[in-house]
């Protein structure tokens, strides 16, 4: 992806982020920028602070130091209530597993964010159905997460993250528990969907083949950005 000259304002920017977890310093002065429509991979060994960085940028935890600016707002200063709303409307999250509610059907899981935003259930169901179809899990709407394969469950999770039309999708090792074929299906589905909608993605992974789906890679070493590799 090329920018047509100048330095465009990033959609999301973290600057000099520091965060402690108990006695371990998970982040020490990490900075990065995410632009509109960009897929950015954050790689690094386990314990390098990748997940903590994602949590800070997504407004899930507050950094001890540094700032997070999303669309002109300081996320690190927003009250929890507004952050919660923002995460629901502007952000989508996908984790390695566990984000689907085990008791709800695939369709209800995808419809949930819409229902939380006040959409009527029938309408939410219809939209959820469309997204499940896009992710190739048509025919499994009535199954529950325990009855889906790992790859199917992650595609349902992606549908759930994208159904509200978020500006940014935060994906923390979305394929961490999948085999290579399922990984390819999930990543291809993600790339196609976000390219169409112009959604930005912050993709945390330790797998170079998954990072290769991104436009750009940022490597974390010991809680700081080591190198930025542009396409």
């Amino acid at each position, binding site marked *: 992806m090329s920018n047509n000259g100048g330095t465009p304002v990033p959609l999301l920017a973290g600057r000099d982020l520091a965060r402690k977890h108990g006695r371990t310093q998970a982040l020490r002065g990490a900075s990065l920028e995410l632009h509109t429509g960009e897929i950015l991979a954050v790689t690094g*060994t386990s314990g390098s602070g990748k997940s903590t960085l994602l949590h800070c940028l997504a407004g899930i935890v507050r950094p001890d130091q540094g700032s997070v600016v999303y669309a002109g707002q300081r996320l690190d200063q927003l009250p929890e209530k507004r952050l919660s709303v923002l995460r629901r409307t502007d952000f989508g999250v996908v984790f390695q597993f566990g984000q689907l509610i085990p008791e709800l059907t695939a369709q209800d899981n995808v419809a949930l964010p819409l229902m939380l935003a006040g959409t009527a259930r029938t309408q939410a169901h219809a939209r959820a159905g469309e997204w499940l179809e896009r992710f190739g899990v048509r025919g499994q709407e009535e199954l529950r997460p325990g009855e889906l394969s790992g790859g199917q469950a992650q595609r349902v999770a992606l549908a759930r993250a994208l159904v509200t039309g978020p500006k940014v999708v935060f994906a923390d090792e979305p394929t961490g528990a999948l085999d290579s074929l399922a990984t*390819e299906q999930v*990543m*291809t589905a993600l*790339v*196609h969907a976000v390219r169409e909608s112009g959604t930005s993605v912050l993709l945390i992974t330790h797998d*170079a*083949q998954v*990072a*290769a*789906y*991104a*436009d750009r*890679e940022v490597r974390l070493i010991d809680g700081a950005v080591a*190198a930025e*590799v542009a*396409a």
Partner: protein
Amino acid sequence: MVPMSTRHILLGLLATGPSHGYDLKRRHDERFPQARPLAYGQVYTTLQRLVRDGLAEVEGTDSDGGPERTVYRSTDDGSSELSRWAGEIAPPAPFVTNEIFAKVVVSILSNGDPDAYLRAQRTAHMERMRELTAVKTAKDADLATVLSADYALNHLDADLRWMTTTAARLTTLTAEVDAA
């Protein structure tokens, strides 16, 4: 990687029916999208060797409106040689020819910066992997394209993993190389 046998690939393409050199080249490049494209010269010399060894023979000529072209077809010997080759296992990495490792060692010997080299190499690898991934995720990519890109991606990924563990153990390696 095992060196490709152009002879056998051409024999394989001829197995579907008689064909001329230009057509064989075109079909090869189509079938193996991410491989190095065949040169015309290579196609013709290989075909002549196949005829010399009795594995293929000239069927006739075909002008088809344009310049006259020689059409080749496979012989019985050719098809039995092909099935022998296709069933033969490829020797798993008979020689380790690792240019990256050689450069790391030379860099240590000459007091260079092997760490910086590995980082730069990693960047180049990642860039190539992104290119290949873009090729395979393109909307119109067919399965052959996806599979050949995957093959390259997996090899590059293996290199990357090796580079990551090597970078983490450079101090020990430097001590070992310097001591020897």
